[in-house]
């Protein structure tokens, strides 16, 4: 077991290195000279040479890569080309919104969807189950901004409960005030992950429910609720943790769309701005942060799958 986890961690480390290579060299194929673009009118020959030297652009690519990677590991993400400010400062101003929204989504969306999925598995084929399945099958294929638009239609246009934009500061707000502040983005992301979580947690529980020991418990006359919570759920935890981690990894994508949709500043809007202004230092740094988060969550998903399923631990 430990060996397998170590092995998976090793693969994770190699993946992270591969990711850093893709991100670093992916942004290096930028057409045009960065120094020329950055300096614009002031791009005299000396200026360009000095600028290239300051950024280390005159060194060979592999040296630049190693320098960038070691700086990244020490928490130095470089200086933004577009605004001449250290990237860490830009992040410091904005990371709270991204963390708060994804954190609250995980905190609210995950337990609610799991409860819905598990209760649907308790009454398979019932009206409740079929309605939930229909809604989640429909929402799973729809884009995030469609879900967001439906929520705006309901809460802003029909019920007139607020704005379609998130405005104002989060400073000094308590837990419930934060939820109210980010109600629409959190609700959108919760719906997006719920459509997957409901289907998959339902399938995970139903899968366990079809095993012989559950049949035994039913024949013994154990009440249904007790079978689900004492017998089935414990064995479904592994697959469910796996599904939860995969869906949180998916939030990395979802959060970009909601930040743009509801027009509040966050890390995701920062990286989109970086792409528009071709600020490749910013893209490299933030891209690494997003991809690292994603890789770590995938790693947790895999380890949860291993830990819960002896058959994966001892492959034939």
């Amino acid at each position: 077991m430990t060996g397998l986890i170590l092995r998976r961690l090793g693969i994770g480390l190699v993946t992270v290195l591969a990711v850093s290579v893709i991100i670093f060299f992916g942004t290096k194929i930028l057409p045009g000279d960065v120094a020329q673009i950055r300096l614009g009118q002031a791009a005299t020959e000396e200026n360009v040479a000095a600028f290239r030297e300051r950024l280390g652009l005159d060194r060979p690519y592999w040296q630049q890569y190693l320098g960038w990677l070691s700086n990244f590991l020490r928490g130095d993400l470089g200086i933004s080309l577009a605004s001449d400010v250290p990237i860490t400062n830009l992040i410091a101003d904005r990371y709270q919104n991204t963390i708060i929204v994804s954190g609250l989504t995980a905190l609210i969306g995950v337990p609610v969807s799991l409860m819905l999925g598990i209760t649907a598995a308790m009454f398979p084929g019932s009206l409740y189950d079929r309605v939930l399945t229909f809604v989640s099958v429909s929402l799973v294929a729809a884009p995030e901004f469609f879900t967001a638009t439906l929520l705006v239609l309901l809460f802003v246009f029909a019920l007139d409960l607020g704005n379609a934009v998130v405005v104002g500061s989060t400073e000094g707000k308590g837990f419930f005030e934060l939820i109210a502040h980010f109600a629409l983005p959190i609700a959108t992301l919760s719906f997006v992950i719920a459509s997957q979580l409901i289907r998959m947690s339902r399938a995970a529980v139903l899968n366990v429910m079809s095993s012989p020991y559950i049949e035994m418990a039913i024949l013994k006359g154990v009440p249904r609720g007790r079978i689900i919570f004492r017998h089935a759920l414990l064995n479904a935890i592994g697959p469910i943790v796996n599904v939860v981690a995969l869906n949180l990894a998916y939030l990395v994508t979802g959060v970009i769309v909601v930040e743009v949709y509801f027009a509040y500043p966050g890390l995701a809007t920062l990286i989109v701005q970086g792409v528009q202004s071709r600020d490749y230092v910013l893209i490299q740094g933030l891209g690494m942060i997003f991809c690292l988060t994603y890789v770590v969550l995938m790693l947790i998903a895999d380890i949860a799958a291993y830990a819960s399923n002896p058959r994966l631990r001892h492959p034939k």
Partner: protein
Amino acid sequence: MSNDATLPPSTGAHPDLIGGLPDGEQTEHFVAPFEHGVSFDELPDAPPKARFRPSLTGWIGIVIVAFWIAIAVFGPLLAPYGENDLPFPDDYSEFQAPREGAPLGTDVEDRDILSRIMYGAGRTIGIAFAATVMAYALGVVLGIGAAVSGPKVDMVMSRINDAFLSLPTIMLGLVVVAAVGSSIPVLIATAGLIYATVVFRLARALGMEIMVMDFVEAARARGEGRWWIITREIWPNAAMPLITDFGLRLIYVILFISSLSFLGLGVQPPQADWGSMVRENLGALQYGQSIIPVLAPALSIATLTVAINLIVDDVSAQAGGRLSKRL
């Protein structure tokens, strides 16, 4: 279920592959071939013809998809205005409510929303379809190639593929657009390459599974060449799951391209595209003026992707595995 009986036993492995992780649904679908009285001397030597009878939801999906394909092809001919024409040049005000001459109202630049949806259909569907075809051409060729090549080639190809698969697709898209800028060919190539990684994995797994089957061994023992084995033994058996997966992949590509356009990094204005229409009209929501300019393109994307999903779900349910679980 009765369809299973018409399949030769060699295709029995597909539902497992399609379904991914084992779960409850599959045990329900598993049918031992003998129960339906397959007699082995009646086995066809050609792959079975697909017999697909859509259910009600399947028909709904087919009608909606056919509607959007018709709009994509004929939209520019039927549209009341050009995509950048102003229906009411004398009456300039953005986000006008639906009125005579503009049934869905006007957008942020006073253009007719209905016409832009009709123009955008072709662009959104066309780009996504081209990208998916490209992903399939690349992924299937490389994936089956990896499966029939030796373990060393396969290892190298699979490791490289895994590195790309471990990145969020939208991040890869952002990096490419940052590097080379955004244009329709770039969008098609980017989405095609990104989704080729997923197709590669599926095609490789299918190829591997089929490679170890007895009829392939038999072909090898007969001394058939690699090309024969790929075209006559592997392809007919891998085609059905791959074609069903095509629909699923198309959904992902539509969502990916629309998200990039929505972020302002896909199809560039003034060209109409559903994803970028949502973006350029967000102001209508933010000032509380009207929801139609945003709802119309978002609803167009959602009806298209959900309808494709209904068809895929229906086809895979009839093929024995529930493919849509992989979404």
